[in-house]
């Protein structure tokens, strides 16, 4: 998994966790809001129902009193109409609220059905009442009053039970709201008890003698229920109630305890004991009406308080939802921002760095490095990468330069090699090929350690018929020694050719030694001559190994014991050695490369080995001797190469029976 994925996934997980937590909280708040909304809707319906119930109780009392009156004043009919409109208004409002809360509340259909049934019942009852209230109505109105009272009370009970059902469904949990709902219920019981007694006592007071014991009993029961309602209301005093609510309760209770309850008790006592009551029907009706108004204003206060609290709660829930939603938006923004920052500040720079690294590792030095101007780790990595790239470019440049240099060296070497090969051809051409001069046959063996050698030799016929020869070995080997050997070759050849009669070989050597420049390497040589008239030869040995003379009888004699090399010591003197060189004799002149050649074990071939070898092959002629020497040496070396230049010159005075040939 790449860092990009790790970082982005981590950030996303953190973000999602945060968003889920906030979303859960928002869901809670929305649920709370919806619950409050339902509560508000339920409360609004219940408020209208409560007001409607109160109004209906009022209509019931008004209608009841009208039904038991002997004649009906027009003004009271108008009051009844007014009361009916109020009932209709409240019930219509309740129905509207219910319809509006259909989405929020459950089972609204059931409540709506119950409400419209109640309204239908009321309308039917009213029609009957209106029939009885008609002026030309033959039936006595008083007959219908108890039925009206009973049936309208049933409607009131149905409305109350509908209200309580609603309350049951949306029971408030908040203590004040719950207390207020309870108080309204108890207030409803109280109001209903008072309203019933308003009507019943009014009828009883109208005709005290005819007051039925059943009615009186009902009045007593209602008074008891009212007292009980007050006890229940007082029981709620410990609940957290608002001041206006407490004041309204206190006012209503004060009125009930000081005015209505004692009056009601005394009237009932008077009626029971058939004593004339101190109050007539109308007066009582008014007193009870006032009490009912106290109760109604208490109910209104309760309703207002609940409404306000619910509205406040709704606003709070709304605010809370908004706050959490804002937090959610902030969270989303923070997560998106984090991902953006991680991408821009970490992931993208890392990716471009890693790509650049891979390219660099692939030797692609043209890759542009990302532009980063940062002091953090990515900036450091980028700086390091810049250094790597600079180093790589430098290395590549150095490599290229090295290659160019190498190519130049190769060219130079090739040129040198070519020069050396050309020089070798020239040097080889300077050496005399195998030939015969007079009765002397000669052959050379020449093997440079590299292309060109510090060894050289020559054999020349002098104008006086003598044969001059030399072999030179310049100290060191390679190009310098080769150049010096060419100079020697020339100087000695000239010296042999231009030699004045009588100049001795040692004088020539001394002359060359004296003329030899100090800054040139010295050389060793054998400079010799073969006398054409006698059977003798002479030579000068200048630091060169002693030549071997192989007599015709097979004996091998070294000539000379040494001598100073040429070019070492100024004013050196040399010695001319004179020795017999009979027909059939051979002389082998060699450079130290022959006897100092080492085998792989580091052992030198040595003069002793050479002398034995030559002695063993004493009968061989010059070419055969040289061929044999070459073979033996290659075997000794176990290699085709040599450490030092090697040259061997073999001269043979041919036996007399062979005709002297004047070639060369």
């Amino acid at each position, binding site marked *: 998994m790449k860092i990009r994925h790790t970082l982005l996934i981590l950030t996303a997980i953190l973000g999602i966790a945060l968003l889920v937590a906030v979303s859960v909280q928002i869901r809670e708040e929305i649920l709370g809001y919806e619950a409050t909304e339902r509560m508000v809707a339920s409360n609004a319906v219940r408020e209208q129902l409560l007001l409607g119930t109160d109004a209906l109780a009022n209509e019931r009392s008004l209608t009841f009193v009208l039904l038991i009156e002997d004649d009906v004043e027009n003004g009271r009919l108008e009051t009844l109409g007014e009361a009916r409109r109020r009932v209709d208004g409240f019930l219509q409002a309740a129905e509207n609220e219910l319809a509006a809360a259909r989405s929020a509340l459950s089972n609204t259909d059931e409540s709506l059905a119950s409400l419209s049934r109640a309204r239908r019942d009321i309308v039917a009852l009213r029609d009957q009442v209106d029939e009885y209230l008609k002026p030309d109505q033959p039936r006595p109105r008083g007959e219908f009053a108890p039925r009206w009272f009973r049936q309208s009370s049933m409607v009131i009970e149905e409305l109350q039970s509908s209200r309580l059902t609603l309350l049951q469904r949306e029971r408030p949990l908040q203590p004040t709201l719950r207390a207020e709902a309870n108080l309204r219920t108890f207030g409803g019981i109280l109001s209903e008890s008072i309203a019933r007694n308003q009507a019943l006592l009014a009828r009883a007071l109208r005709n005290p003698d005819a007051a039925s014991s059943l009615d009186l009993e009902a009045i007593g029961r209602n008074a008891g229920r009212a007292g009980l309602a007050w006890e229940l209301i007082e029981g709620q005093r410990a609940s957290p109630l608002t001041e206006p609510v407490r004041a309204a309760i206190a006012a209503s209770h004060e009125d009930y305890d000081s005015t209505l309850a004692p009056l009601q008790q005394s009237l009932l006592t008077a009626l029971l004991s058939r004593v004339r009551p101190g109050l007539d029907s109308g007066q009582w009706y008014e007193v009870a009406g006032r009490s009912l108004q106290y109760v109604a204003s208490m109910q209104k206060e309760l309703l207002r308080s609940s409404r306000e609290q619910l509205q406040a709660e709704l606003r709070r829930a709304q605010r809370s939802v908004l706050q959490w939603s804002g937090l959610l938006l902030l969270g989303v923004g923070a997560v998106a921002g984090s991902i953006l920052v991680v991408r821009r500040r970490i992931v993208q720079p890392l990716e471009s760095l890693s790509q650049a690294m891979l390219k660099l590792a692939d030797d692609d030095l043209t890759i542009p490095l990302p532009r980063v101007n940062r002091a953090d780790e990515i900036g450091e990595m980028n700086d390091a990468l810049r250094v790597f790239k600079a180093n790589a470019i430098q290395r590549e440049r150095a490599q290229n330069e090295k290659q160019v240099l190498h190519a130049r060296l190769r060219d130079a070497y090739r040129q040198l090699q070519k020069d050396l090969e050309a020089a070798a051809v020239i040097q080889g051409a300077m050496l005399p090929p195998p030939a015969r001069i007079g009765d002397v046959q000669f052959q050379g063996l020449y093997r440079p350690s590299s292309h060109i050698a510090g060894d050289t030799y020559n054999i020349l016929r002098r104008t006086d018929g003598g044969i001059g020869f030399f072999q030179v070995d310049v*100290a060191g*080997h390679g190009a310098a020694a080769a150049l010096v050997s060419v100079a020697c070759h020339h100087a000695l050849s000239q010296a042999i050719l231009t030699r004045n009669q009588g100049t001795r070989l040692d004088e020539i050597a001394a002359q060359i030694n004296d003329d030899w420049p100090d800054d040139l390497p010295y050389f060793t040589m054998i400079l010799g001559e073969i006398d054409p008239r006698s059977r003798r030869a002479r030579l000068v040995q200048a630091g060169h190994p002693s030549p071997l003379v192989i007599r015709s009888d097979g004996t091998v004699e070294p000539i000379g014991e*040494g001598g100073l090399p040429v070019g070492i010591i100024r004013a050196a003197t040399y010695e001319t050695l004179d020795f017999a060189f009979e027909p059939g004799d051979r002389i082998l002149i060699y450079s130290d490369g022959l006897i100092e050649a080492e085998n792989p074990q580091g052992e030198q071939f040595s003069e002793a080995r050479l002398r034995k070898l030559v002695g063993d092959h004493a009968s061989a002629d010059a070419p055969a001797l040289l061929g044999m020497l070459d073979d033996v040496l290659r075997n000794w070396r176990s290699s085709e190469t040599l450490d030092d230049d090697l040259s061997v010159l073999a001269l043979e005075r041919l036996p007399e029976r062979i005709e002297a040939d004047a070639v060369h």
Partner: protein
Amino acid sequence: MLSTDLRNNVLVVRVAEKRIDAGKAPAFKDEMARCIDAGQSQIVLDLSSVEFMDSSGLGALVSCLKRLGPRGSLAVAGAGGAVGRLFALTRMDRVFALHPDVETAVERLSV
């Protein structure tokens, strides 16, 4: 390559090599030149460890002698075997004072 030892004002230079050939000669020549340039005029060259010397080695030896000039002397001690034969062949025994060992050479030079 060389180790030096001063005895009786004679610098004994010991050659700790088995060969003085074309490969070693330049270094040998340089080190000897430093000894000579340091002011030593009486030098004994101990060649007892040297088993082989070629013409380049001999050339280096002669150049040392030339560098030393007439004011000093360069004696050779312990030249035997192939080296001794080279000295004989090239008549270097006439140019260098040859001694069988370092002690003799030092004795002769310090007289």
